[in-house]
């Protein structure tokens, strides 16, 4: 185990900003993109169900 406490884990040996800054943006991208793509398929299905 690398960490003795949660605080130590979040501090990342003083590199917390850089490590968590990287992962936070990656996580945000990889959570938003699936939502957008699922919505796109759903709205395509609805558009096909109600042809104008």
């Amino acid at each position, binding site marked *: 185990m690398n960490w003795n406490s949660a605080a130590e884990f979040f501090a*990342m040996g003083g*590199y917390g900003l850089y490590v968590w800054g*990287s992962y936070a943006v990656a996580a945000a991208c990889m959570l938003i993109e699936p939502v957008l793509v699922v919505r796109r398929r759903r709205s*395509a299905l609805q*558009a*096909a169900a109600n042809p104008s």
Partner: protein
Amino acid sequence: MSSSPTRLFTFAAPSRFYGLAGALTPWFWVAAIALSAAGLYIGFFVAPTDATQGEAYRIIFIHVPAAWVSMVLYMAMAFWAGIGWAFKARLASMVARAIAPTGAMFTFVALWSGAFWGKPTWGTWWVWDARLTSYLILLFLYLGYIALVEAIDDTRRADNAGALVALVGAINVPIIYFSVKWWNTLHQGATISATAAPKMASTMLTAMLLMTLACWAYAFAVVLTRTRAIILERERHTDWVATLARGGSKQ
């Protein structure tokens, strides 16, 4: 027709592919979640602190997988765009379009995490060296491809023009890969290669490979779902889509 044996090309029909992709997607989501949980656990709790970079090196577990996947996705996008162009294969062109946003997203993640890694280790967020510059061009190629195909209303013309850009731009991928050998760059050389033993602890390598597989599972899940959306958009006047859409909650 219906009695003909199932062949690989069966799934080149958008209607068949739609069902197949829908059946596979949940498994890719499960794999992405499980692999990233395992990869992050090993990366943060098992892999040791790096002797020279301290904890900052842990950015590698997202940076390198994102960079690998973004480059292979570009080649896949160019390949399918080219197939769609050369053989008038509609599904191939749709897959190429579905890959582009996900490839761009991974490229952005690799650039972002690279900047956040460069700052503490190199002392700068960005340098215009060969690796970073050629990789930034990859992002512009993705964005250029997307902008071009979205700007042309005629679907077939858009696909063909996009294929041309994607194929010409594919030359950039080997340039990125070899940039650290051909030029003096601030970016380090390859840590993993087919011809030499990896230059890192085995737990670090395990975490990185698990995260790479997680990114691949994610990419498959998202790209397949986007391909399904594109199929519905393009085939909305066909009988099978009308039947499917009226079916309501059905997949």
